[in-house]
């Protein structure tokens, strides 16, 4: 009987405890975790800067907790989307893939979000609007842009008696020769300018970017490749090969093979081994961090002699950001994407840190942008109405690879028929595009 009583008391106590636990106010649900994937490398200052600026957003928005993951490329993004474990926000360095991202639905359409928040995409400059959509579907927004220009070493210029940067391609070649220094054995010690497509180039390579300086067109109005029929391409490549031949192909390759990594303190321009280099605006921040004492200047890329009106313009590209298919916290993800792409304060700060070009018209003139004459060159290039980017197609970067495949053969002297070779590239690109259309999804 006593045992029975104890059992009843214990049971009652347990029931009470359970009831009390159920009645107790539930602990406030924690903040929503948002994961952002970006391509910036942890080996550079860029990822650190992005993380610290996103932390500001994090601090102001208690409802979310943002986790930034760097070193991401498009492969990883696609694998995650397919595996159903994509992050909430993704970004890519390869805007040429926007065709695949938008048409496949891998990156969701942002139009409903933009409409809901009454954001007109005209707040972004034209070129960035172009490479963040495909066939009218906007699945990405620009997150700082890249423009390319000419970096020149003032100390080496002074030694060679040069007082201003070259403005035309003929001048560029003449300067390059004047600035080049050789060792006693004839090998190259300092190279004036290397026009070698593929060297120190992420995608897209020099041959693609420099089409802009020669007014060379990629495609006609119908979307057919016209490299073989637009004489500007042949002119551009002949100029490039002539300069390579002046150095000697083998000597130049040998010289380049001995240079340090592009994204490191051993970058050849930063070390004074290249007197002039075509590079993106980000190099300003790298030089500031790695070789602040370097005496250098920046200028727009020289242009074809018969197109002087193009001087001041340049090639534009950039980082794109979007929301992947299957996102778990769409609204919060959009709020973050909106902040990262339209908030002038964030864009100006991030631009100051990594010296990429801010991507809204308002942020371009933000008083928060730290004035820097080296960087100002790139802001001007970005704002130049003649600046362009390369075509966004259904085949992503594949058409650029075909062009590059031919260019590297030609620059090595292994493709004799320049125009015939370019026409063959046209044929291959057209076939590639036609093949992509068979998928039925491409307009």
């Amino acid at each position, binding site marked *: 009987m006593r045992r029975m009583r104890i059992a009843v008391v214990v049971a009652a106590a347990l029931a009470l405890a359970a009831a009390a636990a159920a009645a107790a106010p539930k602990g406030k649900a924690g903040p929503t975790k948002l994961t952002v994937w*970006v*391509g*910036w*490398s*942890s*080996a550079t200052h860029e990822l650190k800067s992005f993380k610290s600026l996103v932390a500001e957003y994090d601090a102001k928005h208690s409802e979310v907790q943002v986790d930034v993951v*760097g*070193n*991401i*490329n*498009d*492969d990883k993004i*696609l694998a995650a*989307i*397919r595996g159903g474990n994509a992050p909430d926000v993704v970004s*890519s*360095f*390869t805007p040429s*893939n926007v065709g*695949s991202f938008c*048409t*496949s639905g*891998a990156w969701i359409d942002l139009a409903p979000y933009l409409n809901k928040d009454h954001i007109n995409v005209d707040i972004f400059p034209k070129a960035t609007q172009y490479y963040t959509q495909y066939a009218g579907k906007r699945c990405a927004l620009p997150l700082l842009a890249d423009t390319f220009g000419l970096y020149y070493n003032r100390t080496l210029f002074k030694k060679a008696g040069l007082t201003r940067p070259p403005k035309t391609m003929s001048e560029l070649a003449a300067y390059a020769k004047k600035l080049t220094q050789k060792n006693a054995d004839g090998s190259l010690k300092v190279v004036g300018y290397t026009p070698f497509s*593929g*060297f*120190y*180039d*992420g*995608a897209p*390579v020099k041959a693609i970017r420099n089409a802009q300086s020669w007014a060379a067109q990629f495609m006609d109005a119908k979307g057919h490749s016209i490299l073989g029929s637009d004489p500007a391409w042949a002119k551009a490549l002949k100029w490039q090969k002539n300069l390579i031949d002046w150095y000697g192909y*083998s000597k130049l*390759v*040998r010289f*380049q*093979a*001995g*240079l340090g990594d*592009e*994204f490191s303190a051993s970058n050849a321009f930063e070390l004074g081994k290249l007197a002039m280099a075509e590079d993106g605006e980000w190099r300003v921040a790298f030089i500031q961090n790695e070789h602040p004492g370097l005496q250098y200047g920046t200028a727009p890329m020289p242009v074809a002699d018969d197109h002087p009106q193009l001087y001041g313009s340049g090639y534009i590209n950039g980082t794109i950001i979007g929301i992947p*298919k299957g996102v778990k916290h769409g609204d919060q993800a959009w709020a973050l994407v909106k902040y990262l792409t339209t908030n002038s304060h964030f864009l100006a700060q991030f631009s100051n840190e990594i010296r990429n070009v801010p991507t809204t018209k308002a942020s371009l003139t933000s008083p928060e942008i730290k004035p820097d004459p080296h960087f100002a060159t790139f802001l001007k290039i970005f704002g130049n109405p003649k600046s362009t980017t390369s075509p966004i197609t259904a*085949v*992503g*970067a*594949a058409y650029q*690879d075909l062009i*590059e*495949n031919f260019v*590297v*053969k030609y620059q*090595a002297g*292994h493709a004799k028929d320049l125009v015939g070779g370019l026409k*063959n590239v046209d044929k*291959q690109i057209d*076939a590639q595009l036609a*093949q*992509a259309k*068979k*998928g*039925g*999804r491409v307009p």
Partner: protein
Amino acid sequence: MTDRRRARRKAAWRRRRLVLLLMSPWLVGFSVFFGYPLAMSVYLSFTHYDLLSSPRWIGFANYQYLFHTDQQIWPAVSNTLWMIGVAVPLQVLFAFGIALMVSRARSGVGIFRTIFYLPALAPPVAATLGFVYLLNPATGPVNVTLSHLGIQGPLWFQSPQWAKPSLVLLAVWGVGNTMIIFLAAIHDVPRHLYESAELDGAGPWQRLRWVTLPSISPIILFAVVLGVIQGLQYFTQAYVAANVASGQASQAGDLPANLGYPEGSTLFYPILLYQHGFRYFNMGYASAMAMLLLAVSFLVTLVIIVNSRRWVHYAGAAR
């Protein structure tokens, strides 16, 4: 009568069940990791599939593009065949040669065996990085040493003529695994065969030609078949070498744009396949390429095996 038959059937069924149960890990693994992907690959090769949206049936369009339009296929095929034609015989020759020498060593056999085997332990990526560094045309120790001797070394991985031979050097350097198998096979050749041959007046060369080689011929066949299949799937080393040697250093976020560097000389078939599948997101076409690779692998292996009946000698075989 019927009862007995039923009991026998039951016992047979139980036996089969046990066999199935014991085989189930393999059966499951085979169907999940081989059968299903193979069937899917066959299906996808007839579709346009960008990895994200559902595949769309396009009939033979991928195969037509593969055989009639894609100009990169045949250079990739010829690079792959070159690699197989040159690297496989050299690998077999070196593995066998080293094994033969090690088997003859009077002392220090263990040390030699270890030294020659060690490279096989290096991960392919690390080994390739090491070779690209060693063979850097400007700063690499090989060319620096050559320049001290008054010789200007080649451009190695930077030259379309030398890139493949450089990869062959790497392949030959890493023959440790095959060498160990050859060594075991050489040790396995019955002593009495050598003794009989010697009694018949056979010299060292004749003993090698008529005793050693026939005795280890199944291992040679194994090494050749394995080498050819690995050659058809040659990827990692070429991928790493092209990326590093091109000097096209990129940020982590960039996808490699320089596969096949220099000038497409290291664009092997699997690299092109990877490029279509994972760089251009054209998995339907990549699947069609994979089907061709499967068919070729099957045919080549078949030819080698059928042909091998003429020269492979199995000790336990009836003939």
